[in-house]
């Protein structure tokens, strides 16, 4: 007697592709929607500012952006002193923050004993915890007299020949604002740099050491270049913060609406101009303030583009590869 067995249907093989049953297209779709939202937000921002700034351009044309005299009561809206002030104070902050930030990040990632690494990293990052208004007040009350009485005379005697240190020692001014900004952007620079520098693959480090490189050579020729894209990200974030900082700078820069003739001069930046005048501005002056914000946006874009070009031109097309 033969028993005919109907074959039992074989169970479907278990789906090993993970419990998240999101097809690739759905996943990419969600990401794309998020990206579109952010793009829309940026567009909304740009359009709003342009609409508010438009009356300035239709009434005054475009020449006011590069004029030197700021005197709203007499209808003069020259923006040049503020553009220069913004660039100068950011330059000071970045020139200080890049080497010191990079050095600190290298120290934290590779030189500091492992046990103290976390504590020291937190200490540096704590700089980011201090509110900007506190930096401004501390700068005004504590640092400005020190600058006026000690730092500036010293720098003038040592570096006066460069012609950058003319004029009286007032404490408040470009130099103080630049230094305060440097302190404020340092934690950004250090934190992101340190994270990026720390994840350079061990094989590369070991390979370099096997070839007889000293520690510094390893850092300089392997680690830093390998982290270049991430370091650009750190630099960009830090510069962005410096360009846009408002309250701290307004308190220590001296708010002088004239072009600075030395590093020690009081000056003004576009953000300080806006914060000092927005509450009370109406009509053309208000539109001019929005226009100033637009100009700052353009400056930010320019700085970003230059930074990118620098990285690409020095590193070559493989810049992004080693960061993975």
């Amino acid at each position, binding site marked *: 007697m033969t028993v005919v067995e109907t074959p039992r249907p074989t169970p479907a093989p278990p789906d090993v*592709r993970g419990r998240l049953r999101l097809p690739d297209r759905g996943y990419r779709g969600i990401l794309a929607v*998020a990206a579109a939202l952010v793009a829309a937000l940026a567009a909304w921002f740009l359009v709003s500012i342009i609409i508010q700034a438009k009356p300035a351009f239709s009434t005054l044309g475009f020449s006011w952006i590069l004029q030197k005299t700021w005197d709203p009561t007499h209808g003069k809206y020259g923006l040049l002193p503020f553009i220069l002030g913004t660039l100068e104070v950011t330059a000071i902050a970045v020139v200080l923050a890049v080497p010191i930030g990079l050095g600190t990040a290298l120290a934290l990632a590779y030189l500091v004993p492992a046990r103290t690494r976390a504590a020291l990293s937190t200490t540096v990052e704590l700089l980011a*915890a201090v509110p900007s208004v506190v930096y401004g007040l501390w700068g005004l009350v504590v640092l400005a007299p020190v600058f006026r009485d000690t730092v500036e005379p010293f720098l003038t005697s040592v570096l006066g020949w460069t012609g950058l240190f003319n004029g009286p020692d007032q404490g408040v001014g470009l130099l103080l604002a630049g230094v305060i900004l440097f302190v404020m952007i340092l934690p950004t620079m250090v934190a*992101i740099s340190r994270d990026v520098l720390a994840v350079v693959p061990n094989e590369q480090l070991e390979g370099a050491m096997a070839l007889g490189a000293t520690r510094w050579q390893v850092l300089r020729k392997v680690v830093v270049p390998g982290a270049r*894209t991430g370091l650009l990200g750190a630099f960009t974030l830090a*510069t962005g913060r410096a360009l846009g*900082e408002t309250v701290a700078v307004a308190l220590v820069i001296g708010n002088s609406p004239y072009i600075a003739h030395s590093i020690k001069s009081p000056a003004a930046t576009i953000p300080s101009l806006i914060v000092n005048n927005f509450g009370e501005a109406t009509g053309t002056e208000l539109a001019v303030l929005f226009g100033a914000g637009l100009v*700052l946006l353009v400056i930010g874009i320019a700085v970003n583009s230059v930074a990118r070009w620098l990285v690409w031109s020095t590193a070559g097309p493989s810049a992004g590869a080693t960061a*993975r």
Partner: protein
Amino acid sequence: MTVLVDLPADPTVERRRAVQAAAASSLRRRKLASTAALGVCWVFLAVAVVPLVAVVAYVVAKGLPAWNADFFTNSTVPEGIPGGGVWNAIVGTMVITGIAIVVTVPLGLLVGLFLAESEGRVAAALRFTADVMTGIPSITVGIFGYIAIVRNYGYSGFAGAFAIGFIMLPVIVRAGESAFRGVPTSLNEAALALGARKATIARRVVVPTALPGVITGVLLAVARGLGETAPLLLTIGGNQYLQWNPTKQMAALPTTIYNSSSQPYADQVQLAWGAALLLVVVVLVLSIGSRLLAARLRKERR
């Protein structure tokens, strides 16, 4: 008897000796350079720590005297009335920053993932946009918040959250992207080889590996959001009284600091410094907590 024989000069040996001498001497030079450069790094580390110590010491010295029971439980009172506090500002900051975090962190990380996985022109344009957004001055963000929300709906906690979120978003996007890009390609490829979907890879490989960097980035953004003053000045309207409802005018710690520190009355100024100290302590706690979290995550993965 030892006979010293002058061997004829062997060019190979000579060359080998020359190379060894060059390597030896360059080693000294290179070691010197290394010690010097590393020394500079240490100096820079010290330079980075000094202002921190100075500022925090100052904030503690001026702010600690303000801390008492009333400070944490009462709302602000006018000059001359004892027992004032910043509870209304604490509540406002919690609500406003909380809303901003809840909206921006997921959104920002999703966009960070998008950018980390994309190479095309669209992605480049978006990356560029995020970079530029980080450079927008906080006051301009405040103005935007004013035009977008306050003009239509009045001063409110939501308007403040909108402005703070706008500031935090590009920081999270960029820092997130940096962190996600730091995940080794080998891990990605291994997961793909195992047949995982992209969503799974993201959830189980990329995000956990990048988590320490992500946490740092989110923390930086939150620290920035907690301390920003200018955007809040134009959007939340301020409130001397306790207010939990984000559709109404609210107080916040940074604006309280800004306003109270410019009063001519010593007790108001002390209140401001007390609030500043509170902000610093909160971010410190967040920082340490997230570091511990990140360290534990790294250990687990090993």
